[in-house]
């Protein structure tokens, strides 16, 4: 969290260090290339200089180009080796750049096909491939930098009103038709153009012509939860309604895009859309507020389309102060309050806001902490947080707080939240297993996983720290968590059992504990058995319960012998080693020592004879071997019963 005093009431922020550039004026033009995330400041047509700034500090470069008229569009190829400049509706010029951004400033040019054709823009689809979008369709070229020439790869004819390019997915969307509402997606991948099924965006029914056509500024593309959507802003979806809405069309691999979600804005006026961490952020200029939508949260559904309302009430972006060189001699810097939702703002996908007059480029950021108090429904809150980046800390603190007296959530929502967390945890474990099995390391989208140790250290630790929580509630919460883990078939770690035992025992709930063990709610393990052993002094049956558990484990024979011998239960110990068939391997010394300690000569005699018989069976000789270190017990035996009582070798 930032130290600002009112940071709690804003969850949308502009990044601390905006990219600064020379503001637009009559000699300076500014361009933003959203594919490479670069700002171009072009002064006097480039003759004075072009400054390029990218998201990283060292990304900026300066160079000159020949001034041959106003620049309409300027973009680097994805590898920054070739610069494309459009100065006329007929052609695009190219300049090659070296690794150190040096340039020979020699331009080569490519004109579009056809006399009447007008280039409305161009996009780089690969380091060496470029697409011209014209009013007659698209022209796909390969740029051969070393030859300073281009080769036409493909031309597609289509009447185009405007276009939208989405660089990550390589999808170009072309609008056609008299109302520009016929959208044609093309996919560019590896030098191949694939035409995807076109679809129509339904326009609001208008009673009197002319009908408003679909505007370029109302359409964008966004990646949400790994799916590509066409985002359409509808200002007046139905006659009589003033509230605007956003319609999402999901681009499908097969078939036309499908209308899947409608986001209800409940406002009208000028809007701008950003996508931050899979959330749809809508800025409303009139009210100077923004709203957030999450299509992952359940909305109302009519079976086809999900309807969503803002996750939280409209809130402004956090005020932003810019430090400017001071005009007064007293201070060298002065604070300048940037105007938010300014008319000079231009919004780019996914998360860029540019104020060209101010010369600022910000990334919009989302703060999760303030959301915690804004969403009272903890289930919705956690559901929202669980699919955000870096939300683990916030989720854990939400989970912890919902166990605190005063803000305690009810068990039903706690159970639902546990189920949700564990479902993700289970999917993660399963995919881990599959990755191990197939060994094909397809890296998973890094999702937030809340595992048992996180819960133990960060959430259930609240029980240690806060003594006002009723033990019944603590038990209920942990049992709920264990139930949820079991239902997801996730093996429960023994420290959770330890935790529940440590709550039950001080509250004298031994019978409850007993029942949990009886129904194997607490899974058998050696540590658990040891814990049970330690409880014998407060709950006598714990001893037997621990022994039963060790016996069920069947890998704890040594421990069982130790336990029995420590209790001087020699005969049960001997019965036990007989029942599991390890008579020949146990240490006779250990048994004889325990037998001697009982100070019961009869018992000592019995145990001694038992091992003498073992010796006879193993070696045809009742004597103990020197390695067994039993001399002291043999002496003890002799002192009690005399030398004659010792067994002798049977001579037959």
């Amino acid at each position, binding site marked *: 969290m930032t130290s600002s005093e009112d940071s709690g009431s804003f969850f949308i922020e502009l990044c601390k260090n905006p990219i600064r550039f020379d503001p637009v004026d009559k000699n300076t033009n500014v361009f933003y290339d959203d594919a490479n995330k670069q700002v171009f400041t072009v002064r006097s047509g480039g003759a004075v200089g072009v400054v390029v700034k990218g998201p990283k500090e060292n990304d900026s470069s300066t160079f000159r180009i020949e001034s041959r008229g106003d620049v309409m569009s300027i973009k680097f190829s994805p590898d920054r080796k070739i610069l494309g400049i459009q100065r006329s509706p007929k052609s695009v010029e190219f300049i090659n750049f070296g690794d150190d951004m040096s340039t020979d400033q020699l331009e080569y040019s490519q004109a579009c096909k056809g006399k009447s054709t007008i280039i409305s823009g161009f996009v780089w689809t690969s380091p060496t491939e470029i697409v011209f979008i014209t009013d007659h369709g698209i022209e796909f070229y390969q740029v051969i930098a070393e030859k300073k020439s281009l080769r036409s790869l493909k031309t597609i004819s289509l009447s185009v009103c405007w276009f939208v390019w989405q660089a990550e997915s390589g999808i170009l969307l072309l609008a056609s038709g008299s109302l520009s509402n016929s959208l044609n997606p093309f996919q560019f991948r590896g030098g191949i153009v694939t035409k995807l099924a076109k679809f129509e965006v339904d326009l609001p029914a208008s009673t009197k012509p002319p009908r408003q056509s679909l505007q370029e500024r109302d359409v964008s593309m966004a990646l949400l939860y790994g799916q590509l959507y066409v985002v359409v802003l509808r200002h007046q979806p139905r006659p009589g309604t003033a509230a605007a809405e956003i319609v999402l069309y999901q681009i499908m691999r097969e078939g036309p895009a499908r209308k899947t979600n409608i986001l209800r804005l409940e406002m009208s006026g000028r809007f701008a859309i950003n996508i931050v961490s899979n959330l749809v952020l809508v800025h409303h200029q009139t009210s100077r507020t923004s709203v957030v939508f999450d299509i992952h949260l359940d909305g109302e559904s009519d079976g086809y389309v999900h309807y969503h309302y803002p996750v939280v009430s409209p809130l402004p972006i956090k005020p932003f102060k810019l430090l400017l060189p001071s005009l007064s001699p007293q201070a060298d810097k002065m604070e300048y309050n940037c105007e938010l939702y300014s008319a000079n703002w231009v919004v780019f996908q996914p998360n860029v806001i540019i104020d060209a007059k101010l010369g600022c480029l910000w990334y919009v950021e989302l703060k999760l902490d303030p959301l915690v108090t804004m969403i009272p429904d903890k289930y919705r809150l956690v559901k929202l947080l669980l699919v955000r980046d870096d939300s683990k800390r916030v989720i854990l603190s939400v989970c912890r707080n919902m166990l605190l007296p005063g803000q305690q959530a009810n068990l039903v929502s706690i159970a639902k939240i546990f189920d949700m967390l564990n479902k993700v945890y289970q999917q993660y474990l399963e995919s881990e297993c599959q990755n191990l099995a197939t060994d094909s390391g397809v890296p998973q989208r890094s999702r937030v996983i809340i595992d048992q140790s996180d819960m133990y250290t960060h959430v259930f630790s609240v029980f240690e720290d806060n003594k006002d929580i009723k033990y019944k509630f603590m038990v*209920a919460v942990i049992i709920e968590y264990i139930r949820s883990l079991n239902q997801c078939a996730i093996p429960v770690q023994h420290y959770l059992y330890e935790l529940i035992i440590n709550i039950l025992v001080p509250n004298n709930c031994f019978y409850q504990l007993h*029942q949990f063990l009886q129904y194997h*709610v607490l899974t058998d393990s050696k540590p658990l058995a040891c814990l049970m052993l330690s409880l014998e002094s407060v709950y006598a049956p714990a001893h037997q319960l621990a*022994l*039963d558990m060790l016996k069920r484990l069947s890998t704890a024979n040594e421990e069982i012998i130790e336990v029995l011998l420590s209790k001087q239960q020699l*005969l049960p110990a001997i019965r036990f080693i007989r029942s599991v068939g390890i008579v020949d391997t146990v240490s006779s010394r250990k048994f004889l020592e325990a037998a001697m300690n009982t100070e019961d000569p009869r018992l000592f005699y019995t145990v001694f004879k038992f091992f003498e018989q073992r010796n006879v069976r193993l070696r045809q000789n009742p004597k103990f071997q020197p390695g067994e270190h039993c001399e002291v017990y043999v002496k003890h035996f002799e002192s009690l019963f005399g030398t004659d009582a010792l067994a002798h070798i049977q001579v037959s």
Partner: protein
Amino acid sequence: MGTKGATRLVSFFVFNSNYGPREGEEHKKILFYYPKEEDLDNKIKNIGLCEAIVKFAETFSDKPCQSMHTQKMRHLFLEPEKDFWAVMTVSIPFIEKQKEGQPYTEYQEEDVQDPVYEALLRQAYRMFQVCTSPVYEAILRQAYRLFQLFNGTFCHILAKTNNNVDVLKQRLDHFYSRYLQTLRVHQSDIIDIFSGIHFMPLDKNTYLRVQCFINLLEARFPYIKYTAFMYNDQLVWSGLEQDDMRIMYKYLTTSLFPSYQEQELQGTSSVSPARTTTAQAIHYGKFVTGPPDINDENTLGKIPRVFINSEVENEECFLLVYRAHNASVCMLINVANTMTFDLCRKLDGFLGPQLTQLASDIGEQYSKRVTTSGDPPYRYIYFNHMNLAQKTTVHTDNKKSSGIHIPPDTLRLLTDISADMSKSSEDGETIVKTFSDNWVVGKKSDQREFYVVINQKNANLIEINGNNYNIRMN
């Protein structure tokens, strides 16, 4: 062979010597005496005899006298609270025989086993402590419904009523005059000694769901202090301490549930389970104790009070029992809370749908499990001293109401073996062959007792011993 006299309850009385220390005031010692019709002189005489025996025995042992054997009678003594003695006298069964033309009576002394009757006596006291029958006239008609008003210890009653002995006498009379009628003295056996609990086998996930359901119930309705969950006559979960649950289990399975089922069968209950008229979802839940009809606000029904010692001694609680299908939830609510119809309605709204679902899920598991085949070659009784878990295939059902599968003398033999083994803290095993050609194996190990009766013709000891009756149980 002549006629046989069965074991029968001759008398049962409760006295406190301190109440009539002076001569001529001996009758004041009597708190309860069965049979009532007995002549007062005889009552005084019998009590006097018992006092004398107890006192006399004190000179020989630190342990109080437990029983007195005579040719025709067996006296059993119990001092449940200081100076309060409960004494039970049962008759020794006998056979009328002819010997040299003369009729004579042969008493079957060994048929009356002290441990069994000591257990019965203890249970009679605990039952009283937990509950007695209600004052409501209407319910008196149902002889079976015995235990509805709850008492606490003798001392507790006295303390509550300013040492009014008459109230205690009244309560004792009220309870025991009915309770003793239901006591089937001649049918008592080893099961009464164990007085165990039959646990419902459930898989872990279903069990955890039951757990969470109860946690939710107790969180939603915080005045519910303890909860027990039963399926049929089997316990799934108890929030009560073991000792309380033991007697509660006895009460529920031998009294409340059977009488409720009887009532259900007779159709006297006016409630139809499917409430389609109301807006809520259809469920099959209803109160066993509590409002007989959730749509009729006029009657809260009969809600018994019980005395629980789980947290503190003599905590008086309402016992509210709710059932859907075969699953019952027993809720204990401290009497400091007032029972209102509104509360019951809220409980019904919460419990009904959830319990119906849970019960049918458990039922599914249960029906898969109950696929026992024909006549097994052996019968067993199992008892776990740690958690009181008990299982029997010797009796036709867990309530031992309808009969046993082995000869009575064999069943008595089990009691003898158990008594023998209880004398030593060491584990042990006993194998016995009966006259009726049954083999009986008794085993005590790791705080558990296990008895197998094998009906295998011509089997010898080695075969029986070699047989591995390793039946896995709780």
